[in-house]
């Protein structure tokens, strides 16, 4: 294990400070590219006790009695022993790194603006169906402000020095500071680490203060959002503007020992409660079971942690756990369902994973379905329910108004074909909704500020209560037409304004509203793999009728296309229709499965008659032959 001996570090402090003073710059991970041999290690399985000197973002050791005192910097503190520059390229931090492969589509960030009927899936990764945040006019700083509540730091929250130099004062990086990778987001063992406190600090634009407040090391008072764009945090207090003060840090003196060090209760393998902050999914709606009805994932019940399968080295390049994951490491293929549960190699049977026999299940199922199709997610019902997720609905942060109909609408499980494997898998799905421009065959979203400006002219104001409840708006044809006219009148808009919603593209043609199918309007889906149900609760455990019947949700489950906007009816689509398969074919399969027992009886009766006939004549022939020999 790599460790930091604070005593040795303290003795090296003057040298380190000199070296780091020039290099430590907000968002300069390269400055911490340390070579392995320089790092202290214990190489033991015993967890290292992290009793650490805190450093601020300039690399200066923090004395809690200083006035004013700065927040601690996870980058400056943890990088003494852990290579921050390598870690910062890990899966959770590299979305905005153009050098990284996009990988299999995952959960997007969904930018929701109820007033304009916008719910646009965004990602810095080039997944088909998502848009880069810049397309909606979101700068990295705005993106961090909006979604930082569920970011572990780094990535867009910590722009590189070039981006920082080019950033304008209104981007406010100098005021808010960077949102550095907060190692405690995942590695805190203590339940006192408070991600929702980090979210509150980020909402106040206190990016550089968030890790300190979340760790409970200090109370942070003040809000960077009240400071002007050109505020200089390093300048002395302005006597003309006494109210313009950066947030103040009040360290908990009891957390510091006599040498000014702080004990951090950390673990190498993140406990699942930490993962859940960003990766919780909650089924909602009338038929949703209450939380205490959930059994949880069978692996978790067996004593495993998320990080047992979703592993990574110091590069934090985490195995995503699906077959064909090429972005991970050499161990990635073994950290899949097949890797553990099939007897395919040395990794088979790890953790005591049972090798499933799948008695009586025709092998064609393994060619056409992923393991998750039968084993993952809730038991599929005919009406596909809505879900709230941490990333989309801010689960983990406190709210009195969060409800089942809060946008964006996410439904699951939707049984669609995987883009990568071609197998049918359960997915979460959301229908994109945004105002955009059509140029040629493509549609790109319009900057949200342009849309809001047009909405002020064309749409009635949102009632305060409605806005508070974040309710999705349904527009009439006239309202959509008025918005399209307002957007067309905007000189900054080049191209034909369109509105994407409910799986269709809406545009003004011949003075009326015309809606049509379009590639930009297809739902965005990402794979659902958890919670995994045990074998006896898998699809098919109760018989073929789990799928091959009128109640087979994998074929005939209904997926609602949100609510209508006047031009599209609320006709739910079946899973087969969503997959583009033949519903008639799917229904034709029901008959043979309903009569499977009769088929078996007939089949075995035929076999017995045929075998008996052959036996009788074979025996007669044998007797005749033996008789001839005897004669």
């Amino acid at each position, binding site marked *: 294990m790599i460790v930091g001996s604070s005593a040795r570090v303290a003795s090296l402090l003057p040298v380190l400070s000199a070296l780091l003073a020039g290099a430590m710059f907000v968002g300069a991970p390269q400055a911490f590219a340390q070579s392995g041999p320089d790092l202290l290690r214990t190489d033991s399985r015993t967890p290292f006790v992290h009793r650490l000197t805190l450093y601020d973002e300039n690399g200066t050791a923090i004395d809690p009695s200083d006035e004013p005192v700065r927040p601690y910097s996870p980058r400056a503190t943890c990088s003494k022993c852990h290579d921050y520059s390598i870690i910062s390229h890990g899966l959770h931090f590299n979305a905005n790194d153009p050098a990284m492969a996009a990988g299999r589509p995952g959960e997007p960030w969904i930018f929701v603006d109820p007033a304009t009927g916008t719910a646009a899936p965004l990602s810095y990764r080039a997944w088909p169906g998502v848009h880069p945040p810049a397309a909606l006019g979101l700068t990295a700083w705005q993106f961090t402000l909006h979604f930082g509540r569920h970011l572990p730091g780094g990535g867009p929250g910590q722009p590189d020095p070039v981006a920082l130099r080019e950033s304008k004062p209104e981007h406010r990086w100098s005021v808010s500071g960077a949102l550095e990778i907060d190692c405690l987001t995942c590695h805190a063992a203590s339940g006192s680490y408070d991600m929702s406190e980090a979210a509150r600090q980020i909402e106040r634009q206190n990016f550089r203060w968030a890790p300190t407040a979340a760790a409970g090391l200090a109370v942070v008072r003040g809000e960077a959002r009240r400071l002007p764009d050109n505020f200089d945090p390093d300048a002395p207090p302005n006597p003309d503007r006494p109210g313009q003060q950066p947030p103040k840090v009040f360290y908990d003196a009891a957390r510091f020992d006599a040498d000014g060090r702080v004990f951090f209760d950390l673990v190498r393998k993140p406990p699942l409660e930490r993962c859940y902050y960003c990766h919780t999914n909650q089924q909602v709606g009338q038929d949703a079971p209450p939380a205490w009805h959930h059994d949880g994932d069978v692996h978790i019940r067996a004593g495993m942690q998320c990080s047992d399968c979703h592993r990574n080295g110091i590069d934090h390049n985490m195995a995503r756990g699906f077959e064909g994951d090429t972005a991970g490491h050499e161990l990635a293929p073994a950290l899949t369902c097949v890797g553990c549960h099939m007897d395919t190699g040395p990794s088979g049977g790890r953790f005591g994973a049972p090798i499933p026999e799948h008695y009586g299940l*025709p092998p064609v199922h393994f060619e056409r379905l992923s393991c998750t199709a039968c084993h993952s997610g809730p038991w599929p019902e005919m009406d596909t329910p809505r879900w709230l997720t941490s990333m989309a609905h801010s689960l983990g942060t406190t709210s009195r108004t969060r409800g089942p109909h809060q946008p964006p609408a996410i439904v699951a499980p939707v049984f669609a074909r995987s883009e990568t494997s071609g197998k049918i898998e359960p997915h979460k799905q959301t229908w994109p909704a945004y105002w955009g421009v059509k140029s040629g065959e493509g549609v790109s979203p319009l900057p949200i500020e342009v849309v809001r400006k047009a909405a002020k002219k064309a749409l009635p104001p949102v009632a305060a209560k409605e806005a508070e409840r974040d309710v999705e708006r349904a527009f009439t044809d006239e309202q959509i037409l008025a918005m399209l006219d307002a957007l067309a009148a905007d000189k900054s808009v080049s191209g034909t304004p369109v509105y994407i919603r409910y799986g269709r593209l809406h545009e003004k043609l011949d003075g009326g509203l015309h809606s049509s199918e379009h590639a930009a309007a297809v739902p965005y889906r990402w794979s659902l793999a958890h919670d995994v149900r045990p074998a006896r609760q898998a699809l098919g455990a109760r018989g073929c009728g789990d799928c091959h019947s009128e109640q087979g949700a994998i074929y005939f489950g209904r997926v609602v296309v949100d609510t209508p906007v006047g031009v599209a009816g609320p006709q739910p689509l079946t899973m087969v229709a969503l997959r583009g398969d033949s519903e008639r*074919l799917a229904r034709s399969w029901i008959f043979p499965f309903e009569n*499977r027992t009769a088929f078996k009886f*007939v*089949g075995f009766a035929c076999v017995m008659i045929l075998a008996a006939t052959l036996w009788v004549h074979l025996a007669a022939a044998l007797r005749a032959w033996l008789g001839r020999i005897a004669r």
Partner: protein
Amino acid sequence: MTAPSATSATATGRPARGAAASGYRFCAAVVVLCALANAATGFGRSFVDRESGGWMLLAHVYLAPLLMIALTGLAVLGAGRHARTKAEGGPPALCRFAYWFVLVAGLALMLAILPAMLPFFGYSALSLMVELHEKAGIVFLVAIGLWILAGIRAGRSTRT
């Protein structure tokens, strides 16, 4: 298509008559037609079907019981006649061989896949059964081909 065994039954020059003979001819025709259709849907589906359990597999599944029943009828109605030598009033040797070959291959074909419908076999065993079913299918096709050939030859010799 002429049902070959119906022709073979005339190899002695005395055309088969009665309900049993008609039933036998009908079964023979169904066996040949279903065998060819199931070969096309079985071996051809990997080239045609895109969907999970597509139309080809569906047709294969719907035709399979017909083939099984017809083959059983063929056995029940034709075994006695095909147990006799030509001298005893039975069909020529090639016809008799082809007939029994068809029955044995058909039985193997059914035995290779029917147990897969029971919840006693796992993935490896089921994969093996599918493989055996495919191989048995090829052998069955050869048997059917030989049976047709024998029928045609017997028919020609009867005419001459």
